[in-house]
């Protein structure tokens, strides 16, 4: 596979115009994740509304793959139940570890995120694509555990 094929139009579209970028209120939990090998960073906020992902917002610095992945991720999980969002996260992680062997069901469920299939062929870049997803999962889990999801909805809370 050519390195050029990594940069699918969908990925570059999201990189050019990131969806849901910029930190917003209200939120239940905020996390900071970094990729220590390369320095990519993301600060991400999650707000939950009775078991549904009400909002995801973030500030990210890093390569096109990590930024576009965060954009696609936020599109996919906002409005889904936390359970469904975690299911997508697991599927995306599986896709990243597939070494490029695309499973048909992923195309329906992961939508734009299947464009990252090429990343799975470049092991050094898998962490870039997973950065936003792991930050989301961490933030959502912390929000669930602290019970702030419904109790303090609308009140900023540093996670």
């Amino acid at each position, binding site marked *: 596979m*050519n*390195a*050029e094929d*990594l*940069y699918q*139009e969908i990925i*570059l579209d999201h*990189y*050019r115009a990131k969806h849901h970028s910029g930190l917003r209120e209200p939120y239940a939990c905020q996390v900071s994740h970094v990729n220590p*090998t*390369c*320095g*990519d*960073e993301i600060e991400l906020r999650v707000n939950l509304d009775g078991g549904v992902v009400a909002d995801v917002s973030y500030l990210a*610095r*890093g*390569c*096109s*793959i990590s930024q576009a992945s965060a954009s696609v991720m936020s599109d996919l999980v906002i409005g889904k139940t936390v359970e469904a969002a975690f299911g997508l996260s697991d599927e995306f992680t599986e896709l990243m570890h597939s070494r490029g062997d695309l499973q048909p069901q992923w195309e329906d469920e992961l939508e734009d995120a299947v464009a990252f299939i090429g990343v799975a062929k*470049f092991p050094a*870049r898998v962490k*870039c694509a997973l950065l936003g997803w792991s930050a989301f999962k961490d933030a959502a889990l912390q929000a669930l555990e602290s019970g702030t999801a419904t109790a303090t909805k609308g009140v900023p809370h540093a996670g």
Partner: protein
Amino acid sequence: MTAQSDALAAVRADFPILAREVNSEPLTYLDSANTSHKPRQVVDAVAEHYLRHNANVARAMHTLGAEATAAFEGAREKVARFVGAAQPAEIVFTKNASEALNLAAHTLGAGLRPGDEIVTTVMEHHSNIVPWQLLAERSGATLRWFDITADGRLDLEKARAENLINERTKIVTLAWVSNVLGTVNPTAEVAAAAHGVGATVVVDASQGVPHLPTDVAALGADLVAFTGHKMLGPTGIGVLWGRYDLLAALPPFLGGGEMIEVVRMAGSTYAPPPHRFEAGTPPIAQAVGLGAAVEYLEGVGIAAVAAHEHLLTEYALQRLHATAGVQILGPQTTQDRTGAISFTLAAGDLEIHPHDLMQLLDGRGIAVRGGHHCARPLHERLGIQASTRASVYLYNTRADIDRLADGLAYVRDFFGRRL
């Protein structure tokens, strides 16, 4: 050795890896500041050691033990000669430069107290920052920093104005050559100031010894750390050079076999340097490999290596300056600069992230490094998150530089068209 000479072709023939293809393209290896390749002579020396002379050193009394010990101590002599040490006992083998710097921080730091100051620089590799941060935490000493000027050199004027080196300063540590900017620092001048207040000077020479003729006395330092794998040697072997009288006054670092004199249940006494600092079975074959690497560099001539790299660096700076969108970090000329060249690349207003750049270059067989190069504070100081670094060594050619420059224009246009 000139850039296009037969000598260069002969050198390249000693590095079989340079003949391989990467992604169906000839390999263009511009990442020697990360790790260098190994000539056949080094690999053969390691293989020969394992296949013919393998035994533990200093404790095996049989013939193989004597051969292995002679090979290990012989490597120490070669390294000592290569860096101008007064005697082989000034060469301590460690597993890498990080361990050498940790050894320095632990042993020098034994007497540090709150109020004492340690001085490092903002252009250091993490391996010459974190051991001192840990020492500062342990001892209560304060860590202070040399800043840099706009052209990527140590800001000595600002340091003087801030009274950075003063009567509280106990340790001053700095890189001889920046692994990001390629800046060659005036270690002797800094050392003179440090010695003037009674401080000990540690120099991280990891990016210097492989590329420049080295005379540890001329560096002005009391301790000098470097690593084998960046100078054609194997991984797993590093060096700490120290003035013998200083080494003899320092406490042990790691405890274990071979670093002792007498061990009693009531307490132990320790071997003199260098063995005091070499607890346990050392990296024997790796030391033998490093000895072979030193002989290889002496065979080519380290002055010839430096001259070759100087020409390549000059050419690379010229090609990169002429490539639209490239911004070179650090010194813009070859004055007091080596061939580690970091830069950013933009397509119009759009900064192309070093990972994206590196990925497309790799697709063309060009190996560079993208990221913070283990120097995050420096990147923060420069106001950027990451950069791309191309670095040359004795086996690189002008054609390598051409492929890099052409590759950068290609990547710029690839993203420029599509973003």
